[in-house]
Structure formats: C-alpha cells, structure tokens
C-alpha cells in the first residue's frame, strides 16, 4: 500500500509478545516528528527484518500515527538431534548455538536452512555422500516450536582407484607411497587414507609435484586431475595425468645479496653442487639452513629466494640464491597465554631468549622444547608477532595448554582383616602451579603402615640447581611383591642435589641415612636369606647412603617424545660404617626415532649391577635344640625348654657347631628384580631370575632377584591412533632377566615377550594396560599376559 509522505505524530507497534517496545524503537530508522514516505517505510521494514526477531512486518497509517504490525518469530522450546554418529552431538549443538539455533532463541527458518546445508557439507567432507538431513519443525502453543534434526549418515565413500598416467620414469607404487588418498587397503581403518577430501587430494598433488621437482624434472606439469564417484556414491576414483619433461642438472649455483656472515660460511650451507641433478628439496633445505643460521643471530625475517635460469637446449639450470636478511630484530616482550594454573615464573625460568635482547631462533626453539619437557603442558605453541609501529621489534607469545601432571587418589575403607584402612596418594609434578614436584603417601591399616613424603624444587637457584628431600617410614611385606617372604620396616631421610653441567646434562648427588629392619620367618623365608641375616648378626641394617648420578636428556617432549635420547648412570654406595658396605650401579638408556609421523620407535635399556666391597663377614653358628617338656605334670606338653647357650667362641670344632655362614655380595633386600609392567611385560612382577629352594608353600621356590639386571625394550608407538594426546598405544618387544652376579650371566636365559600396551593419562593419574605374549620362556615361569598399573611415575 503506497504511503503519501506525512509527519509522524506518534508510533504504535502491534503484535509484540516477547520483544519489548523499547527494543524495537532502538532499531527504527524514523522518529516522532519526522516525515514518513515510501522510502522510509521500506527502510523501516528492512531494519526490523534485520533484527531477526520478526517473521512479518507491515507498515500502516492511522491519521498521523504510524502503525507497525509485526508477527514475532516463535521461540525454540526443544532442539533434538537424532542419528548423528560421526559428528558428536555436543559439537553440533555448539555449532548450532553459534548460528543462533538454541533453546530459548528465536527460531529462524533461514538459519535452519543454513544449518542443514552446513551439516551436509561437513558430512560430504568426511566422504559421507549419501547423508540425508531432514529437519522438522513442530509448532507448540504460546508461539513456540520444537525443532528436531534427523540425520541419516549412510556409508562413507571409499577411494577404490588412484591412477597417475604419464609417470614413465617411476613406478606409481613409489610415488603414491606417502599420499593421504590411497586405495582402500587393510590398514585403512587406522590410517584413514581411503576417505576422499579435497584438501587431502591437493596435498597429494603437491607431493606429486615435489616428487618430480626433487628429482630434476623442472618442466614437470600436472595436466589434469579427475575425481569421479560411482552412481551409488560409495566408491571414489582419482585419476591424474602428467607430463614428466626432461631431467635438468645444475650448471652453476651461487649465493648473492647481503649474507651478513662471510660469503664462504654461507656457501658451505648450500647442499647441491654444480653438476648435480636439480633438486628442489635440497634447495629448500639449503635455504632453510641459511635462514636458520641468520635467524639465530637476530635476522628473524631473513629470506632466501632461489632464482633459477633454465637453459632448455642442454637442459641445465643456473641457480642464484638471493639472501635477503631484513633488519636485525630485537625481542621486546615475552608473554605467556593459557597458564591458568602454572605461575609465570615457572615458565619464564625455562626461557633461553630474553626480553630487550636480539632475536635468536635457536633460543626460542630451545625454550619451546624445554616447556614441552616439563610435562605440565599438553601443547606448546610459539608465535612471534611484529610489534606495531616498529620495523625491527617482535614480541614472543607462548600459548600453552595445561594438562594433569600427576595423580591424586584418596581412599577410606574398612575390612575385618585390615580394620580401618585410610590411604592418600598424591603426586604432582607441578604442585600448585609452582613447578615443584611433591608426592605424599599415607597408608594406614591394622597390619601395615606407610608414610612417605618427597619434594623437589627444580629451580632452588635461578640457574637451575635443584634441591629436594625424601622422607619415608614404611612397613613392607615383600610377599606382596611376589618376591621372597620376609618383612622389612624401612625408614629413610635423604637429600637430593641436582647440578646442571651443560644445557642437556646434569650431575645429581644424593645423601641420606636409612635403616632397614628385616623380619624373617623360618620355614617360609628362603634359607639363603636367613643365613645372610645370621651371618651379619643383626636384623637391622643401618646405612649412610650416597648416590652420584650423571644424566643427559635431549628428548623433545615429556609424554610422547619423538626425538632425542635419555641416559642416566648412577653409582649408589653405602659408606663404610654402615652395617653392610655395598655399591649398586644403575644404567638407564632410551632413544626415540620418528620413522613417520604415524610411527615413533623407542629403544630402551635398563642395566644394574651390585656387589659388596670390603671384606665378607664369616660367622660360625653353634646351636643345640631345646626340648618340649610337661612342666606341670598334667600329661600335656606345654612348655619349651631352650637348649643350652651356644658355646662362645663358636668354632667349627665346638661340640654344638652347626654351620658357617658367610655374608657376601649384594644384600638380598637390595637385589634387582625383573618381570612385570616396568621391565619384561607378560611375566608376573619380580618373578624372573634365580629362585630359592622350595619353601613356604612355593613348590618352585621363591624369586630372590639377583645382583645383575639386564632388561631391554623395543617399542613402536602409534601417536595418531588417538586424536587426544592423553592416550598412547604401542606395540613392544621386551626382553631381560636378572642373574646372581657376572659369572652366572647366560644369554639364552634371557626371557622375551611381545605385545601391545595402552597408556592413558586419566585425570586421576596415569593408567597403563598391557597384553603381552611371552614367546621366549622356560617352563615354570609365572606368566601374566594381561597387566595393569595405576598411578606411579612415568
């Protein structure tokens, strides 16, 4: 209805339910007293539609009053999604919310249409071309609607045929080796490489291009690529045809531009030489190493442009590497984001790059690695944005994503056997975000008590000297650990000092006193242990203990290293004056190779040897059995009359001489054990190695452990199996055993097993589950294929 211009005396809005009149007024382009004409009417209607609140807007006139009748869009009462398996409901609802489709919001048909289209696109991207998305809107009273979106996903289309035509000089098999789009094969369930996506294909075309350019085919060109799908939309076909062109060799390669460093130094970094076949990857590597070198001394924006001039006749190419260093850059500020728990200083002390200092890429990379090695963060990302208004200043922004770095278990219980049991086990690598490692253990029950506290401050001094202490008082029943049957009450106080000697290696000094009271049970404790204790002459072993350790660690991550090596050698000795004087040498080694982004190989070695030093203690034992007697004459044997005191000094010639016992070698309670989740999986914990004579119900004797430990692990980790970093699956081969001293070492006594393991960093603490098949075992070994550990360190 056309409206002749008139001055608006008043404005009335009909049909408002939910929206307040005030709100509508703010969006109206026309005010009281202004003239209303055709253009203004159109503008009003458009403005009100843009608010998204109204389904229908009409402008009318009653005398001088402008009447706007609106019909509000209904509100969404309930929004349900059914049938979506590939994309989880939470992600969907989050996405819908952003588009404005959520409970309580005004319902907008256009938004629903956009959502349906967006969902179809997302499913097509995952190769599900048969997806059908049917939204239904059911109106309710009071201008409300229920919206349900039903998704029928259908089967994902699989790539069945990848063919490259014109690749005469190479076999398609080699070229397609690390493509992301491959014909569906038996490994596709893991590599997910049979699902087509446009990004993957363009990535593969780039790989095809690089394959040829890295081998000298400068004129290589991809003539056409075809993607086709079967009529039932279940199989995909990728074809590409190429022209290889000729192989070019490098006639001459020179470096020009301001190289900052002496020309010959930069030229040494150039890998390809004149006469070699042209190779883009070698050029890129050379360019990278030049830019790296320059960026290590402040030239953050350094660039190297390879300018080729080709000579078609003799098929050679002259390359001029133009070095453009750009300005020498200073770092203004270093800022950290995402550390809601970790304190700023804990991160800053790991920095190798300083503020108001010249930019060093090596220092920044090193800082990133050091943060990743702390184990507090799941991901560490670095950005170096330029400072606005300056040409030679950048800020360095570290974006960290924190994760659980430790475990916390609290338990209260009651059982007839053990009475009230309370246990708390807390171990945190980043206690209260202060970067200190704290672990507390308190377990109490009627028959067993254990209290332990350990603390380490890795930065007692700003330069990285670490200081910590461990205190514990433990009652241990060793049969719990499947080893020989005896108890020990062990108390210790130790101080640990760590001295950094290079960027990657450090020396550790440990000093402490501890006492270990052994309780043996004749008849169930192996005789060798009883003899040892008798030989030493007392049940409590006091020791002044020291350990000197050297460690070197170049791994690039705490949870899932993919590069680098860790090795530690420790010499632990009890000082003269301790009850027994012995030493133990431990050597740990593990090395990581990234064979392929989806496969990381870890090889590990764990060796240990211990022996006593100083002279052995020899003791002769004299002993005459007592007798049982009926002391009160009631016919019952009720008292035991001990035999006469053993003759002093007890000599082999003494009448009641029993035997001579010798205490030599590593004390039994310091023996190494093997088998179980942290050494050779597939065998019960600590059951490998020499065993005692059959005693205490053990028909095959009890495991004694040994003074020589040789354990090794080879593990293939699959980082890509789980999207999240908190879980890690690996296939492994473990081998090893413990022996009683050097001379008993026997290679074919080594046990070995192979299997798969899952390590999951649950919020409560690390959980590991492993299934191993011991393929090299001897009969009588105690096998335990499925093993499970909870808590404990990494």
């Amino acid at each position, binding site marked *: 209805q056309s409206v002749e211009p008139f001055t608006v005396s008043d404005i009335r809005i009909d049909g408002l339910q939910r929206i307040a009149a005030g709100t509508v007024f703010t969006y109206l382009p026309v005010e009281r007293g202004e003239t209303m004409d055709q253009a203004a009417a159109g503008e009003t209607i458009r403005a009100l539609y843009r608010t998204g609140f109204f389904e229908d807007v009409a402008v009318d006139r009653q005398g001088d009053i402008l009447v706007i009748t609106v019909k509000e869009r209904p509100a969404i009462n309930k929004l349900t999604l059914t049938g979506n398996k590939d994309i989880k409901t939470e992600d969907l609802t989050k996405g819908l919310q952003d588009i404005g489709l959520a409970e309580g919001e005004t319902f907008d048909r256009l938004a629903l249409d956009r959502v349906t*289209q967006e969902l*179809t*696109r997302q499913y*097509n991207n995952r190769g599900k*071309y*048969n997806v059908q998305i049917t939204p239904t809107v059911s109106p309710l009273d009071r201008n409300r609607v229920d919206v349900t979106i039903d998704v*029928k996903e*259908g089967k994902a289309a699989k790539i*069945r*045929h990848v*063919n490259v*035509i*014109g690749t005469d000089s190479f076999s398609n098999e080699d070229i397609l080796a690390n493509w992301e789009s491959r014909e569906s094969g038996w490994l596709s369930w893991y590599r997910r490489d049979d699902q087509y996506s446009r990004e993957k294909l363009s990535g593969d075309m780039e790989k095809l291009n690089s394959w040829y350019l890295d081998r000298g085919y400068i004129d290589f060109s991809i*003539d*056409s690529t*075809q*993607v*086709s*799908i*079967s*009529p*039932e*939309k279940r*199989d995909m*076909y990728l*074809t590409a*045809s190429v022209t290889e062109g000729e192989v070019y060799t490098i006639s001459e390669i020179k470096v020009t531009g301001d190289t900052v460093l002496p020309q010959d130094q930069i030229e040494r970094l150039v890998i390809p030489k004149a006469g070699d076949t042209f190779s883009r990857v070698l050029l890129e590597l050379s360019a990278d190493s030049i830019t790296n070198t320059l960026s290590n001394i402040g030239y953050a924006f350094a660039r190297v442009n390879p300018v080729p001039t080709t000579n078609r006749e003799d098929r050679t190419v002259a390359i001029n590497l133009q070095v453009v260093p750009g300005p020498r850059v200073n770092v203004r500020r270093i800022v950290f984001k995402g550390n809601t728990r970790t304190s700023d200083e804990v991160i800053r002390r790991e920095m190798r790059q300083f503020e108001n200092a010249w930019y060093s890429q090596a220092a920044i990379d090193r800082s990133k690695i050091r943060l990743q090695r702390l184990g507090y963060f799941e991901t560490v990302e670095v950005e170096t944005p330029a400072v606005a208004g300056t040409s030679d200043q950048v800020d360095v922004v570290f974006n960290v994503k924190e994760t659980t770095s430790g475990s916390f278990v609290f338990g209260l219980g009651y059982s007839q056997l053990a009475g009230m049991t309370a246990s708390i086990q807390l171990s945190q690598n980043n206690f209260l975000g202060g970067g200190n490692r704290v672990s507390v253990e308190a377990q109490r029950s009627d028959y067993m008590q254990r209290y332990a506290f350990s603390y380490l401050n890795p930065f007692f001094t700003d330069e990285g000297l670490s200081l910590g202490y461990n205190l514990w008082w433990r009652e241990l029943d060793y049969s719990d650990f499947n080893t020989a049957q005896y108890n020990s009450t062990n108390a210790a106080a130790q101080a640990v000092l760590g001295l950094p000697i290079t960027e990657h290696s450090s020396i550790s000094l440990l000093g402490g006193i501890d006492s270990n009271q052994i309780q043996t049970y004749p008849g169930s404790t192996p005789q060798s242990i009883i003899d040892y204790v008798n030989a030493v002459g007392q049940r409590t072993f006091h020791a002044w203990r020291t350990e000197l350790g050297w460690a070197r660690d170049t791994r690039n991550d705490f949870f899932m290293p993919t590069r680098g090596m860790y090795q530690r050698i420790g010499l632990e000795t009890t000082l003269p004056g301790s009850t027994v004087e012995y030493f133990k040498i431990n050597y740990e080694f593990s090395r990581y190779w990234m064979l392929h982004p989806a496969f990381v190989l870890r090889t590990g070695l764990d060796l240990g040897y211990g022996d006593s030093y100083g002279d052995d203690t020899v003791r002769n034992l004299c002993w005459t059995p007592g007798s049982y007697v009926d002391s009160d004459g009631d016919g019952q044997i009720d008292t035991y009359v001990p035999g006469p005191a053993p003759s002093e000094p007890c000599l082999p010639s003494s009448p009641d001489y029993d035997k001579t016992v010798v205490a030599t070698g590593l004390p039994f309670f310091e023996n190494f054990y093997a088998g179980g989740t942290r050494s050779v999986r597939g065998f019960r914990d600590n059951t490998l190695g020499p065993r005692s004579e059959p005693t205490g119900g053990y028909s095959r004797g009890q495991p004694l452990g040994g003074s020589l430990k040789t354990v090794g692990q080879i593990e293939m980790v699959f980082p890509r199996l789980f999207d999240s970093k908190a879980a890690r699956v690996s296939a492994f081969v473990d081998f090893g055993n413990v022996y009683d001293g050097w001379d008993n070492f026997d290679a074919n006594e080594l046990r070995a097993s192979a299997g798969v393991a899952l390590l999951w960093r649950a919020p409560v603490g690390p959980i590991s589950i492993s299934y191993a098949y011991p393929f090299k075992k001897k009969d009588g070994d105690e096998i335990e294929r499925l093993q499970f550990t909870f808590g404990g360190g990494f």
Partner: protein
Amino acid sequence: CSTVKGWFAGKDAEAKKAAEPAELVDFQPTAQPAKVWSTGIGDGERRIGTRQTPAVLDGRVFAAASENRVVALDLQTGKQVWEFKAPKDQALRLSGGPGAGEGLVVVGSLGGDVIALDAAGGAERWRAKVTSEVIVAPLVTQGTVYVRSNDGRITALDATTGERRWFNEHELPPLTVRGNAPLTYAPGVLFSGNDDGTLSALSLQDGRVLWQQTIGTPDGRTELERMADVDSAPLIDGTMLFVSSFKNRTVAIDGPSGRPMWQSEYGGIGGLGVAASGLLVSSPAGTVYLLDKNNGAALWSQPALARRSLTGPVVQGDYAVVGDYDGYLHWLRLDNGELAARERVGGKAIKGQPVVVDGILLVQNVEGGLTAFRLD
C-alpha cells in the same frame, strides 16, 4: 525406557531396509533362456568402474577383462580362436573396450596405451599413447580409430599406422560419475556424450564441433547434486538420436539438424536399449522404463528391481534384459515390463551393458566371467 528403545529400533530397521537393494520376488517364468557357453577371460575389472563389455565382429567375440590379455572367441561355441598377451615386463591393464571394426580390434589401458590387433590372428599392428586412462571402448570406423580418454579428450588415430590425426578437448566438472560415454557415429558426424551433461557432434574428419546440445542441466547446491554426466552411448535409430544423462533426463534429437524433439524425465547412465515399440532405459534408482519414441512418455515402468544398480537394458527377442549388482540377469517382457526370467551369472556384479548379436546375449561380470545365452 526399554519400550522406547524397542520402538526406535523398529523405525531404524524399517529405514535401513528402505536403503537396501530390493529383495528378489518369486514369479512364474514365461521365458526359458538357455546358457550356450561360459568362460573366464581374466581377473575382471573388480572395482575399477570401467563397465567393460565384449565387442562382436563377423561372428567372433573379442573381450578383455582389465588383465594383460585380449581373447577372441567364436560367437556360437565360445571356443578361443586367438589370445594376445603383452610381454611380462610391460604388462598392461587393458580397461578400455575392446572396440572392433574394419578387421581391427583396438583396446585401451589404464596407463593410456592404445593397442591395435589384427582381428583375424590377434597380431599387434601398432601401439599409441593417449594422455589419460582409457576406460571405454575405442570406436573404429572409416579408417580411423577414435579413442576417448578419461581427461575428456577424444584422440583420432590412423587405423593403419596409429598416428594421431587430431584431438578434441572438452572441459570437465570437478566431480563426475565414474565412466565415459562410448562414441557413436553417423555419416560424417561423431557423437560424444560429455561428463558435463552435454552432447557434442564432431566432424569425423577433423574433430570440429558441429553443434552441442545440453542433455542434463547441472543444477543443485553441492557438486554432488550438480552431476549430470552423459555416460551412456548416444543411440541412433533411423534419423533419431537418443541421449540419456545421469540427471534422470533423456532427450531425442533429430540427427541431421541437431534439433531436440522431446525431453523425458527418465534417464540413466547404464546405456539405452531400442525396440520397435520404444526406447528402454534403466534409472540410477533402479527402475526400468519403456519410453514412447515419439514423445518420451513412459509406456510401462518396472520398479521391482529398485536399488539393485542395474546395467543398461538390451533387447533380446521379445524381452528386455538387464544385469544387477548381485550377478543376476533379468528378462522383462517388452510389452508390459513384467519379469519373465532370471538367471544368475556367478556371484559378482554385472556392470557392463549386455550385448545381443544374432539372438545370442553376451554378458561380462566384474570377475571376468563371459557368458552367452540364447532364448528358446
């Protein structure tokens, strides 16, 4: 809550069934097809999607099954006359054709090779190279071999020497239906169905485009919905030309002038069949139609084989024959479309349109099994 779950499963089961291929229903057979002979000619196309069919020339059947082998059999007995094998080290995957004509058998490979063999003895006459994989039978006529490669290019090669005379390039949409349309010819004109839903008429001599006609319009929001490939051979019946597109559209064109006569919304990529009473077509959804040649109206439709990925229909006697994804051949009565007979040819899918010559129907499945049937 358990009741609700039960109810849900019901709805799901029924929804699932709707997506599965239709069950085979029993019926009283009114035709007795008899197997004449059956033989294996190679490990078959399996999943390469080339819809390979044999070629027949002078009583001989020439067939290849994407293996390094072309075989010639006697039409009546199926006995092997000769066999061609490329040497071991240059083994080829022969996926295109073969096409036969003028004493020549030409076959294309996935590597873009074109090999011409002597129809009589199977000796290799010449060999040429085209720019992409050949997944449709080359056409041999008037001293020239026309080879269509998957990159939308048609190359004309001299029949005796194999030298390239000319080539024509046609633009391809980013996403197409697997497969290319076999070439057909009329005096002086080469008809080529394109993947963008158009039909081009080229001059046989120099490949100039005489005229072009849109068969299926590529409309829709996603690339998937826009697919309108013309992947079946244009069919010449008298002066009329029938062309069908994946976008459920068939167009009849007056050959000489190129003017479209009528347009029908039934169509498919499986290949057209022609009988006196009408034009046979099987739609991607799996329904077989008989269309009136004058206006394209559906005389009858047979939906019983829905979603069984049917091949193009072909006429044998009074029956229309289609193959399906499970290896079944179905004979339908030409007059009313009712199911007349059903035979199984091995367990694997039949994708290529069967070929009928002298009353014998030849069908090749994806496992390289070639079978001949005769109607008593």
